[in-house]
């Protein structure tokens, strides 16, 4: 699984294992072996202690919604005329997105495909899961628990 299948643009990073893990059903973070700081999105280097020995660790997947939106005017790669726009059921119903906090300083961004925007509330409990799109790309979805 190439990292680009998640990131769209970039394939070359020391944390490209993330996409592989995602394809295997896991949302992973990195933890600094020296000072214990945990990073999501994962980082290959620790900005707390400037060391670069990290280990991979699966994240908790449940947390409270920090915020959300639904983008009706999408950028180039998500234009509605493109068949690949993820989770777009009808032309004028793009999918909401949001950010949940699964631990202190551990925010997970994801699509919220199953919810009416009016029913999404800041603070609601949600769960993050990997999701493989029909075109082979891989991403993350959030749903209420």
């Amino acid at each position, binding site marked *: 699984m190439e990292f680009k299948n998640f990131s769209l643009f970039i394939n070359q990073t020391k944390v490209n294992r993330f996409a592989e893990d995602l394809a295997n059903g896991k949302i992973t973070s990195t933890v600094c072996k020296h000072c214990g700081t945990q990073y999501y999105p994962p980082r290959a280097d620790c900005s707390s202690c400037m060391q670069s020995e990290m280990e991979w660790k699966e994240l908790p997947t449940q947390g409270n919604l920090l915020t959300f939106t639904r983008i009706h*005017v999408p950028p180039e790669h998500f234009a509605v005329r493109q068949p690949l726009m993820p989770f777009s059921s009808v032309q004028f119903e793009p999918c909401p997105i949001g950010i949940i906090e699964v631990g202190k300083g551990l925010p997970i961004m994801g699509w919220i495909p199953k919810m009416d*925007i009016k029913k999404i509330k800041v603070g609601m409990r949600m769960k993050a899961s990997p999701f493989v799109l029909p075109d082979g790309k891989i991403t993350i979805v959030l749903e209420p628990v």
Partner: protein
Amino acid sequence: MKKVAIVGIGHGKFGIRSDASLRELIFEAVKACLDDAGLSLKEVDSMVTGVAGDEFSFGIQPSAQVHDYIGFYPKPNFRVEGACATGSVALRTGWMNIVSGLADIVLVVGVEKMTEVPTSVATEIMGRAGDAIWEYPFGTTFPGYYAMIANAHMAAYGTTEEQLAMVAVKNHYYGSLNPYAQMQKEVTLEKAMTSFTVAYPLKLFDCSLITDGAAAVLLASEEKAKALSKKPVWLAGLGCATDAMRLGDRKSMTSLEASREAAKAAYKMAGIGPSDINVATVHDCFTIAEIVAYEDLGFCEKGEGGRLIEAKETYVGGRIPVNVDGGLKSKGHPLGATGVSMAVEISKQLRGEAGPRQVKNAQIGLTHNVGGSGQISLVHIFRRE
């Protein structure tokens, strides 16, 4: 520390400028600026160019397009960039040029030519002003980032969609009085409230525009400024600060820490506080951004921004007039030009030349300019004396 003043200002027409290229837009602003100062380019020592996007300028080193076209070479000129705060980064760099002794008179220009690329491409370029690796894959856009700030702010403080729309109503009103503004018509609260959703809860009238435009200011050392200008506008405080790249990594989702830090530095340097400001231009790329700026700059308490606009305290005649040039919202937001345009407007106000938008006896003004979704923020404070 040496003193630096603005001794010349120039502003081109903002809008969909399909009649002109980037270099031609700059020429208009530079010509106006030199005429205003009564100087020729020969008397200028150095230059700083603010352009935000290579992809808008069709090439790296857009500064070379500028120094070539206005004939400034062989003198120093280079580009600075801080996304939507690029123009203020240029001003800061121009100030450093003079205070460090490298130059006595510096031309600071900002420009962006955004409408030559298709709108969906412009939306993508700006969407990647968040984290291109970790946010853009979720289809994020500029309105999307600020919509997430809006939803968090509404949940935390009860800010309403009406209050957001009230910012649009104010800024369109003042835009209608500014001949350089892209949008020169007023909008009603009802029209703003019923416009289509761009990124929930932000509607069309909550969003600034995609704009072509240029602006320029001439900076001078104290000695030169006193010799050259009857109405120098002194740069009294500078602040620049940064924040995490991704919204989710920020200390707060309802304020911009970079703005709070930049404001703190600028107030300290100028030796004043928020209540001393007579007029301000703040970064209203979206209506929620103006409300958050009220709070981050100390114009009101945290969470009170919505109520400040509701009480019309940011109109001329109110407690603290904000964006009475129309703001990014109505004047337009050509990324690299915006910060310089803000300095032009505050200079007009402090000189008493703002016409129907004039704040009476304005002595101290402030500009606030944010890059990306808050990764950088610059605050500048200007004084008449």
